[in-house]
């Protein structure tokens, strides 16, 4: 990248292109009605937060996403993070696991344990959760297409240890709509995916009162190039589709809606992100109460996890990323997040080193315990600018939701490629703005330095793939084949008959069927998804 000689100008619009005035005054919020549009923290429509006492009552959960190598490697990192004061676990899986392939599948070559941990069978899950008190620590699993299988494994481990199902808590991401839109790790087509999610929602409502079956995620769409408004609108539109799916599966809205949670990105435009979080709570409360008629106030709550923006990190001058992450984490806290992952400075190169991930966790602890911002709920509430921006972000997001409703809802919109195209357009527009220096990334298109000092990065041990493949083959060789095959056959029957697949998947997992074998049954019954590639 060419070093720019001229100094860039201060932005006059948000990162997403909303124009900004130089000063905001009472007339900018003239239409704002405190009781109707804000309410106290803990009161409808929850613009100011879902709890009256916010972080005094309960601090956000510091949850660093981790996982690499084999289950042993990842288990070691979990114990390290718990020792360092982390309060919840968050599991990253490798690409073959995300796509429902076992580690010895030809397509897994070179990918095993690289971007997360490889989990093929119940044996791996037992090791991953070794010595983790499942009734005390909540676990978030970033898994989507095979979320049913990984949840079944988690339940099976709890069952084996004699921990009652109602005492295990955590989250599976299970948000397939955003996979088709942005992250693009899939197995079966959209409508079949929705059916499998319905099975999980019913299973969750009956068996796992503390489990968040779906984490409705804007993060990946934002990382793929969505604007703040698109992230907000598409996430809530996905949420509408899941609530409808639960209702269509025969559940009462209040039976499952309180267990829906959200996951947003926190990008680098400080006030735009805070406005996005505040608007999200207000919009979801209205959607749940007015559109779906939910009566339980917990169904109205938009509870969310935040991750700072991976895409905002730079390979150049990587120490600068510590400052970016601190700003983003602060915005997430001021926006009222329930849990937070702070990215590490070295993540444009590889998974983070222990040192880098510790700095990222310490950043959260500094915000929580030193900065003072956790003492007061929604400290920016009532600020002319923040309220005006919240209203504008909300207005633009409703427009998108109306367009998606007109297309027949999010499943149909995804099949038509609508959100995919909108995001690709936004990504290209942003890249062009960078090229013209209309948007600035310090150290990249402004204030660049020729000489860079290389930083230390995490290397995945070269024998991970071999060790993992060996264990999976050993599991297949040593199990009771008759029992395994019967469980897989039963799953196929249930799937073909349109029954609830989740119970059959738990049985298959307990019979030591592998992830790949279970997903093969689903591929066989429902077909495999293929995307129409467009540029």
């Amino acid at each position: 990248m060419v070093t720019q000689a001229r100094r860039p100008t201060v932005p006059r619009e948000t990162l997403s292109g909303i124009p900004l005035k130089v000063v905001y005054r009472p007339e900018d919020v003239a239409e704002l009605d405190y009781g109707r549009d804000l309410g106290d923290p803990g009161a409808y429509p929850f613009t100011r937060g879902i709890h009256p006492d916010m972080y005094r009552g309960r601090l956000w959960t510091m949850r660093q996403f981790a996982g690499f190598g084999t289950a042993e490697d990842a288990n070691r990192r979990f114990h390290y993070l718990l020792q360092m004061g982390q309060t919840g676990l968050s599991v990253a899986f490798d690409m073959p696991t995300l796509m429902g392939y076992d580690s010895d599948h030809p397509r897994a070559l070179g990918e095993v344990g690289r971007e997360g941990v490889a989990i093929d069978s119940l044996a791996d899950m037992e090791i991953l959760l070794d010595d983790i008190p499942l009734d005390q620590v909540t676990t978030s699993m970033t898994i989507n297409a095979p979320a049913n299988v990984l949840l079944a494994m988690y339940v099976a481990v709890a069952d084996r240890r004699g921990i009652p199902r109602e005492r295990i808590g955590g989250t599976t991401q299970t948000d397939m709509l955003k996979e088709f839109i942005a992250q693009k790790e899939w197995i079966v087509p959209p409508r079949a995916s929705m059916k499998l999610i319905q099975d999980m929602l019913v299973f969750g409502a009956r068996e796992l009162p503390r489990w968040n079956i779906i984490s409705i995620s804007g993060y990946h769409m934002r990382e793929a190039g969505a604007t703040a408004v698109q992230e907000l609108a598409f996430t809530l539109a996905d949420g509408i589709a899941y609530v409808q799916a639960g209702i269509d599966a025969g559940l009462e809205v209040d039976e499952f809606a309180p267990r829906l949670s959200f996951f947003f990105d926190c990008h680098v435009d400080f006030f735009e992100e805070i406005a996005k979080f505040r608007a999200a709570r207000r919009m979801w409360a209205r959607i749940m109460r007015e559109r779906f008629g939910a009566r339980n106030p917990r169904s109205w709550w938009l509870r969310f996890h935040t991750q700072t923006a991976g895409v905002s990190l730079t390979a150049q001058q990587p120490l600068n990323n510590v400052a970016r992450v601190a700003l983003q984490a602060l915005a997430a806290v001021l926006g009222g997040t329930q849990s937070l992952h702070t990215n590490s400075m070295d993540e444009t190169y590889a998974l983070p080193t222990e040192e880098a991930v510790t700095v990222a966790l310490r950043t959260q602890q500094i915000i929580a315990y030193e900065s003072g911002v956790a003492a007061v709920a929604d400290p920016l509430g009532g600020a002319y600018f923040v309220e005006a921006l919240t209203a504008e972000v909300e207005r633009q997001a409703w427009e998108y939701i109306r367009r998606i409703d007109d297309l027949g809802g999010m499943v149909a919109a995804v099949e038509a490629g609508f959100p995919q195209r909108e995001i690709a357009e936004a990504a290209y527009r942003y890249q062009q703005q960078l090229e013209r220096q209309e948007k600035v990334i310090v150290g990249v298109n402004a204030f660049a330095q020729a000489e860079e000092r290389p930083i230390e990065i995490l290397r995945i041990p070269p024998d991970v793939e071999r060790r993992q493949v060996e264990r999976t083959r050993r599991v297949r060789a040593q199990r009771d084949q008759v029992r395994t095959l019967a469980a897989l056959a039963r799953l196929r029957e249930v799937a073909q008959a349109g029954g609830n697949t989740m119970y059959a998947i738990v049985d298959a997992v307990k019979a030591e069927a592998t992830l790949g074998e279970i997903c093969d049954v689903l591929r066989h019954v429902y077909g495999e998804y293929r995307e129409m590639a467009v540029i």
Partner: protein
Amino acid sequence: MGNGKIRILIAKPGLDGHDRGVKVVARALRDAGFEVIYTGLHQTPEMIVNSAIQEDVDAIGLSILSGAHNTLFPRILELLRQRGAEDIVVFAGGIIPEEDVAPLKQAGIAEIFTPGTSLQAIVDWVRQHVSPRGVKA
């Protein structure tokens, strides 16, 4: 390809679905006047080399963010050699640690673009380093 227009296959090997970068680069190359064919996601080395030969491209641009580059890139180069298509220029981009760059270049990847590279830099590089392979016998 009588008109001498450069044809580029933009490909996404491996299982990672991070296609923001690949799509932006594909579009920038197309806007710069190249003929661009995009494979779509989750391609095996065999699929990529088959497409490159079928489409008679002059260059292949590979994008990978999963960390599998040290396995998949050499495999693609090897398959190109086996098919007698080693004159196709192969360049790449993505999350590729600095210390992997030199060995991959030695293996035959012509250039590697890491995060923060401008679109113009990629377009300029292609203009300078890729020429039409010409009509084959």
